[in-house]
Every structure is written in C-alpha cells, then in structure tokens.
C-alpha cells in the first residue's frame, strides 16, 4: 500500500515539476539573456489558460484549441516585448520590477473585464478523463500521465533546440556573455523577441495543461510565478538544464512534503498538532531548499555565466 502511495506521489511530483519547468524555462532565458526581471511571466500563464478555456469552449475540442491558444499567447508575449519590455532592458532591476508589477495589475484587471470575475471551466479531453491501471496495480488519472508525457517531450525538444541548433547556440552565447555575443554580431534584440514569444507559448502550454486540474481564475499566475523564480534561482539563472533540475526538485519536494509530512509527524506528535504542522512545514520546505542551495552555491546549481 505505502509503495503505491509513494509511486503515486512521485508521479504527481514529476507532473508538477514538469509544468513548473515549462514556466521556468522561458523565465530563465529572459532573465539570463537580457538580465531582465519579468514579474509578468505569471500573467502570460494566466492569459494562456484563459485563451485556452475560451477557445476550447468555442471550438469544442481540446486538441484544436491547444495550438491556437499557444500561438495567440506567443503573439501577446511578442507584442508585450516589442511595446514595453524592450524599453526596460537598459534600466536597473528596480525599474523592471516596478514596470512588470504594473503589467500584472493591468493584466489581472483586463482579464477580469473581458472574462468576468468567475473562474472558467476547462475540461480535460473526454477520452482522457478516466484512470488507467499502471504496472503494479496503481490507478492513475490518464490526463496526469498525458501532462507528464507532454512535459518530457517539451523538455527534450527544448534540449535539442538549445544544445543542437544554431538558434540555441546564439541563445546560450547571449546567456553566458551578452556583450561578447553582441560584439560578435548576434542580433540580440530580434533573438530576444523570439525567445520571449517562445517563453509565452510555454507559459500558455503550462496554463492549458494545468487548467483542468487547477482553477482558471484571476491571480492564478502570482503564486506559481514565485515558484518559477525559486526554480530558476535553485537551478542557476540562464541555464535550461538548471531549470529542469530545479523544477523537478521543487515539484517532488513540494508534492511529497505535502503528502508525507503530516503522516510523518503523526507518528510521534498528537494528531491535531500533526495536521497543523505538516502542511505548514510542507509549504516552507521548498523555500528552505532554496535557502540551503543558495547558502552553499550562491550562483545556483548550474551557473550559466562562466
């Protein structure tokens, strides 16, 4: 029994971690290449989820809506980059924080005006609503398995894009030394618009995949944004590999902490105390992880800058 529970929680952690990776990948590249703090990244996740819910309703199909939502969100991201964020690259981090915080406020209100204050409903594709039986007898939601599959696929694609293509080489060059890349004739500005649009599409993918599990509502981007920042700081800013490792660490630590800490405390503490202390400590756990990582590796696990 406990073996099955362990397997189930590991899969949940993997699934959550891979979705965090989708968010963190775009964030870490934006951060690494342009040295830009973008708090509005979570807003793109929210906008992606809303577009997905609307398009799924309009087309009646999850699979037709998905690529449309990704493209639309990428477009929103590119417009945001071209009109606003581009003006902020030369400014200090504080100005970037202020401006992108303003974008969060604006995005939340615009979403509330367009879609209203009620959360939207986004259903998983009908063929994937039931559970499947995994080897070992575990009943696991097939939709969650799909999320894991999509996450792994995107991670592989990103790895191929970053490690094996010319565009990826330019991205890595920009992340490790921006001035040198500029001096060597790389058109960083155009590259960055493309990276930003890609990051937005990944946000939308995470929003679309998590939509049926979590609620599609205003403010959904804010808490997950902080987790994405934790991920990229643990992994090392600018490093895709770091983002993947950080995301999996955070996903698994958070999920298993929530599942097992109350049980663990229940062994030697009175039940009412265990049920209070368990979830609290579980929430604290990932921040503790980050503080410990930063204490020993102040540049994160995989620093991109040499």
């Amino acid at each position, binding site marked *: 029994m406990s073996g099955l529970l362990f397997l189930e929680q590991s899969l949940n952690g993997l699934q959550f971690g891979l979705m965090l990776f989708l968010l963190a990948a775009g964030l870490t590249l934006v951060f690494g290449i342009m040295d830009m703090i973008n708090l509005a990244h979570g807003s793109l996740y929210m906008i992606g989820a809303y577009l997905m819910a609307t398009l799924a309703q309009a087309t009646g199909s999850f699979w037709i809506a998905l690529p449309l939502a990704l493209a639309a969100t990428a477009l929103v991201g590119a417009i945001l980059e071209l009109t606003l964020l581009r003006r902020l690259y030369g400014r200090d981090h504080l100005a970037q924080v202020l401006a992108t915080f303003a974008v969060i406020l604006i995005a939340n209100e615009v979403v509330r005006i367009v879609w209203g204050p009620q959360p939207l409903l986004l259903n998983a594709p009908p063929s994937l609503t039931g559970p499947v039986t995994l080897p070992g007898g575990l009943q696991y939601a097939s939709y969650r398995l799909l999320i894991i599959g999509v996450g792994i696929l995107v991670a592989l694609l990103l790895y191929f894009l970053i490690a094996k293509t010319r565009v990826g080489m330019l991205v890595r060059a920009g992340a490790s030394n921006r001035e040198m890349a500029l001096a060597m004739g790389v058109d960083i500005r155009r590259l960055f618009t493309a990276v930003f649009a890609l990051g937005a599409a990944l946000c939308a993918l995470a929003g679309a995949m998590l939509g049926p599990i979590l609620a599609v509502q205003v403010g959904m981007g804010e808490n997950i944004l902080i987790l994405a920042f934790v991920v990229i700081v643990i992994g090392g800013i600018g490093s895709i590999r770091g983002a993947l490792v950080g995301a999996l660490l955070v996903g698994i630590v958070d999920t298993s902490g929530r599942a097992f800490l109350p049980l663990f405390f229940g062994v030697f503490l009175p039940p009412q105390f265990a049920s209070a202390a368990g979830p609290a400590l579980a929430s604290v756990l990932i921040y503790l992880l980050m*503080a410990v990582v930063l204490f020993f590796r102040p540049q994160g696990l995989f620093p991109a800058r040499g």
Partner: protein
Amino acid sequence: MKRVLACFVVLAAFPLVMQAMDNLFYVSLASRMLIYAIAATSLNLALGYGGMVSFGHAAFFGAGAYTVAILATEGISNLWLAWPAAVVVAAVAALMIGAVSLRTRGVYFIMITLAFAQMVYYIFVSLKEYGGEDGLPLPGRSSGLPLSLADDVTWYYLVLALFAATLYGLYRLSRSRFGRVIEAIRENEVRAEAIGFPVYRYKLACFVLSGAAAGLAGALIANQASYVSPSLLHWIQSGTLMIMVILGGVGTLWGGALGAIALLALEHLISDYQIDWLERLAPNYQDHAGLAVGVVLLAIVLAAPQGLAGMLSGKRRA
C-alpha cells in the same frame, strides 16, 4: 528646511480641518498612509541607502503586527510592552534572515529574502490558534497612554509623531558616520572592504535597523484596523512596499513617504470617487482600480526614472 516645516504644519493641521468639516474618515485614511510611509521609509533605508534590495520586508512588517496582535489576545495590550516587543521580534527576524541572505549578491539576494518572507508567511498561516488563514482580530487599540487611542484624532497624532521620529532618525543616520559608510558600501563594496570597513557587519546592522523600523510600522498597522491577517506578510505586500519606495524615490529621505502616500491616495481616489466623465466612458471603472494604478505606475517608470522625489527636486538622470 522651510519646506519640511510647512509639510509638518499641514500634516498637523489636517485632522483639525477634517474635524471642522465633520469628515473623520480622512483622518483614519491619513493615519494609514503615514503608517505605510514608515514601513516604506524603513525599506528605503535597506534598499536605497544600503543597496540591499529586500523583497521580503513584509516579513518584518507582519511579524511586528502579529506580535502586537498575539500579545493583545493573551491580555497584554500595554503599548510600552507590546510595541517594543514588536520592534525586537522584527529586529531578531531581520538579524537571522539578514545573516544568511547577506552572503549572496544581486538577484540572488532579492530571491533569498523573498524565500525567507514566504517561510514566515506560511508559518503564520499555520498558527491555527491565532486565526490561521482568517486573521486575528484585536480586542482594541493598545493602552498605556493617559489618552484613549480609540479616538481617531489622538491616534493620528501619535502616528504622526512616530512618522516624524522615523524621518528624523533616517535624516540623522544618513548624515552620521554609519550612514556614510553604508552609502560607500552601496557605491563600491570592494573598495569599502579594502579601506578596512567590516562590510558584512555594517550591512547586517543596516538591515536589522530597517527590519526593526518595519516592525514598528507593523505594530501600528495592527492597531490601525484592530485586525491582522497573513496578507500583511504576503509577497504582494513586500512588492507593494518596494513599489512605494521606487515610486517615491530610491535612497531619498522623503522617497518612501511620498511613494506610500501617493500610491494609497491613488488607490483611494480611483475606487472611492465617482468621476462622471470616466463613468460615462467606462461604466463600473471603480471595480477595476488595479488597471488605473497599473497604468499610472507604468507611466511613472517610463517618464520619471528617479521617482516622485526626483521629479519634485527637478533633478534629471545624468
């Protein structure tokens, strides 16, 4: 100096005018603004003067507030006991968080202070016997003065006095040897180290002072509404304090206060006032105050890089 004096004369006369107009709501709003002004000023000490971009100041603000609230529920509402306790608790929290965080630099410092603040947030959310997620109401404002603080005008003057003391403290600090060293470290840490200043200890002292002042502001905000909730510790609160400082002017004496007052006034103006032409243009605009606040913030970032204080003194970026 004349301008400062004029400012405080206006601030001191404000409740009398409002009393004459029978409009005490604004006295209460003004107290709230001044409390946030203290909190933002405390952050400005670390962020503007010390160059330490703390994204977790709500932790100290909230710790101060919760100290007062918890002591009050346990029957200790004397301000001579509760408020110093709030300051000490916030200072100790700042000492522990700062001691670890100050080993990192730049963006990593921003993120590690955020991480610690989130830990504090979740710890208070989990305190079920003190309200947990729902927050904790106080039996009333603190006692211990011959006057009753339940009276909004008396309360305003007490807050104003503490605000003046905070600003004066920052003024004296920035002109002291300690303040000079802190600014030298902000400008060039390596050089300050080479000259022989114990950089780490100076920064930590500055961070603790800043946290302690935020704890005082927290003690006041708990009294203001006679209610505390975990939202005082949420990262959005840290962000808002940072926004106030950036909006007002980083590293300027009045920056935190200006930003706090401007932001709260803007929020109030949009959500509580009926502007007829705007109402015709966009019905229900008052439900969407965040939109206007966001647009104004964006305009200020793009148009006034030095914040409001920079705009007022007419300085331009070189």
